[in-house]
């Protein structure tokens, strides 16, 4: 930003103004005015559009989420209801749908929960003792710890054998499983493609394709693929004795199908950016390490990985933000079923909207917004900033 400042002090604006002043007449004066206001002309249209279509609807959505919406004769009626919609989601009739069915976790579950909480608290304590803390940072981190602990609580309670994950949990599963697999696959493929293989441009173009395909199309294609009666893998199912058993009809199978579709589509995005990052890294370090006799494993962890780490964290952040919005795949591929097993938060919100519960729909959307913001912020403070400093 300092750059722009220097640029401001150049003699250029005076030059522009002088010409405008010499030639009188309204077109010139208009030109002069536009020249002086150039900064606003550049930025204001975008700001206006975002204000009109993001901020303004966001305020209305907040209001909707706090009210009961009802269609009456000749229009609709909005009645303020306080936190009723949220209460319904978190404690009331929608709790099992939204948060899932809770069951007492197994000892392993309790252990995982204890470890997560201990790690979070330890991070907080070390932050307090680091002498660099500010009030804002402290509040943010305390909130993060509380948030992480409640997510862990949710995980161990809904993923235990007797429990059932709700839409929050399903969305989180989609996001994290997808991210981990997409990143690993993308990185692996990118590493393979950086080697000097003949014909790698062919692979690069091929690998790019799924990213361009509409998610709805992918959903249908994978419905064909996963069909055990007429899909292409029928011989395999028959050989396994599973031909009559449709694995998409059990909850985890259906979730897996959705995730496979998402991984198929978005691995290319990881791949293409990581490939560009890998090709941009310095060759000297790599060759020096080779000459010194380092093996490939060491080179990867000590030299390559640290170099692409900043890109990776941003890449994961971008994908994380987008992955939370998943809706097309579960809606078309499984219709959210069996039951509500594959429903993501956005899909649940859409279904509420379709059944004309606009307040409930807005409340779910707001919960999703909180979730995305919290996970995003926690990720940025815990990981990305640390990486960027290194």
């Amino acid at each position, binding site marked *: 930003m300092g750059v722009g400042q220097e640029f401001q002090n150049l003699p250029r604006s005076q030059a522009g103004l002088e*010409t405008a002043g010499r030639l009188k007449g309204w077109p010139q004066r208009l030109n002069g005015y536009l020249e002086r206001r150039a900064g606003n002309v550049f930025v204001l249209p975008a700001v206006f559009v975002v204000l009109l279509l993001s901020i303004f609807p966001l305020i209305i959505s907040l209001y909707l989420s706090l009210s009961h919406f009802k269609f009456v004769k000749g229009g609709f009626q909005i009645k303020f209801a306080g936190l009723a919609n949220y209460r319904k989601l978190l404690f009331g009739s929608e709790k099992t749908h939204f948060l899932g069915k809770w069951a007492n976790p197994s000892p392993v579950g309790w252990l995982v929960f204890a470890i997560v909480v201990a790690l979070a608290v330890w991070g907080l304590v070390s932050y307090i003792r680091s002498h660099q803390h500010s009030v804002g940072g402290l509040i943010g981190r305390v909130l993060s710890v509380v948030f992480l602990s409640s997510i862990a609580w949710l995980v161990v309670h809904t993923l235990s054998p007797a429990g059932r994950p709700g839409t929050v949990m399903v969305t989180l599963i989609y996001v994290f499983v997808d991210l981990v697999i997409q990143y690993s696959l993308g990185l692996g493929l990118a590493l393979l493609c950086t080697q000097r293989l003949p014909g790698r441009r062919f692979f690069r173009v091929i690998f790019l394709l*799924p990213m361009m395909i509409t998610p709805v199309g992918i959903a249908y294609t994978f419905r*064909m693929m996963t069909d055990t009666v*007429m899909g292409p893998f029928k011989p395999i199912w028959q050989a396994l004795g599973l031909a009559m058993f449709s694995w998409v009809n059990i909850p985890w199978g259906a979730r897996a199908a959705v995730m496979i579709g998402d991984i198929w589509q978005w691995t290319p995005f990881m791949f293409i950016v990581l490939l560009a990052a890998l090709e*941009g890294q310095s060759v000297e370090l790599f060759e020096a390490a080779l000459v010194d006799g380092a093996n490939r494993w060491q080179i990867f962890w000590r030299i390559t990985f640290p170099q692409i780490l900043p890109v990776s964290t941003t890449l994961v952040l971008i994908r994380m933000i987008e992955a939370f919005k998943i809706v097309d795949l579960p809606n078309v591929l499984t219709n959210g079923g069996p039951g509500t097993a594959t429903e993501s938060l956005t899909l649940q919100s859409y279904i509420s909207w379709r059944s004309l519960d606009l307040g409930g729909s807005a409340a779910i959307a707001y919960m999703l917004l909180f979730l995305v913001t919290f996970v995003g912020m926690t990720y940025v403070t815990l990981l990305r900033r640390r990486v960027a400093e290194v």
Partner: protein
Amino acid sequence: MANFLFRRRSVSSLSPAQMVVSYLLLGIWALVVLFPLYWLFITSFKLPVDVNNGPFYLPYVDFKPSLHAWQYILVGDLSIDTMRNYINTAIVAPISAGLALLLGTGAAYGLTRFRYQPRLGAILVFIGCLALAIFAITLGVPWQIALIASGAVFIILLQTIGRRFKRSLANNDIAFWLISQRMLPPVAVVIPIYVLFQRLGQLDTRTALVITYLAVNLPIVIWLMRDYFQSIPLELEECAAIDGASRYRTFWSIVLPLAVPGLVATFLFVLVFAWNEYLLALFLSGAKSQTLPLTVAAQNATRGPQWWYMSVLILIMIIPVIVIAIALERYIARGLLVGAVKG
């Protein structure tokens, strides 16, 4: 023999064994990518009986290809619907992507080359007045009156209270605010947008879709292009300024030509998003302005999924994008990388 297999010619090249493994892995993933597309392709030439009677893999060997589905979609019963939706998509996607690129690039340029200092007080007053207006409208006040009244309140407050706050925002704050809109789940804003367009009588029009996609895509354009502009050196622009070129001229004939790779990648990204968008179109379009993703989704009709028609629709929908993507493959990586490095 084994010795030959594992020997490398130079330090960074591969031994034959490593090469085989690499090709094998790449080939497996290429198969994973291509097989669903191949299946889509052959399904579009199958008769319903060929689909239902179990999997057939090779045209002319396993089954006799037929053009019936293509005929039905392109010249037969469904052609009017398909064409209308195709035209809708072909109009909405490029226009909204173009507008997003225009406004977003302008904003990104402004944010890297000018200094903005909006007063925090003014912004708070603005948001307060906006909330007031919305509240008044929901209470039943006619919207014209509410808007004028809140506008008046805004100006009065701005002149009195707004100037007292000395704190102002910097470029980084504005950029962060604009970019963070990308975190917003569309479903959180779509209901008010629906009501807004309903009030304006623009529901189920292409205009509504263009405007909505524009707003959704602006943050990503600003994000990518801002980083691109930061990587362009200032000297050329300074020369132009000394020669008396106006700001707009500098932007148009010096900066933009330098930014072409970034512009192409960003445009492609935004275009593909608008081309494939499903959720917002589901809310905002009815029969008239339906886009292709909705047509595809609608094929799961009363008689069960019609795989053959669906395959044709998906194919005609993805072919243009795939052609563009292959043609511009080189730009994509470069354009996206700049955003990811600095973001």
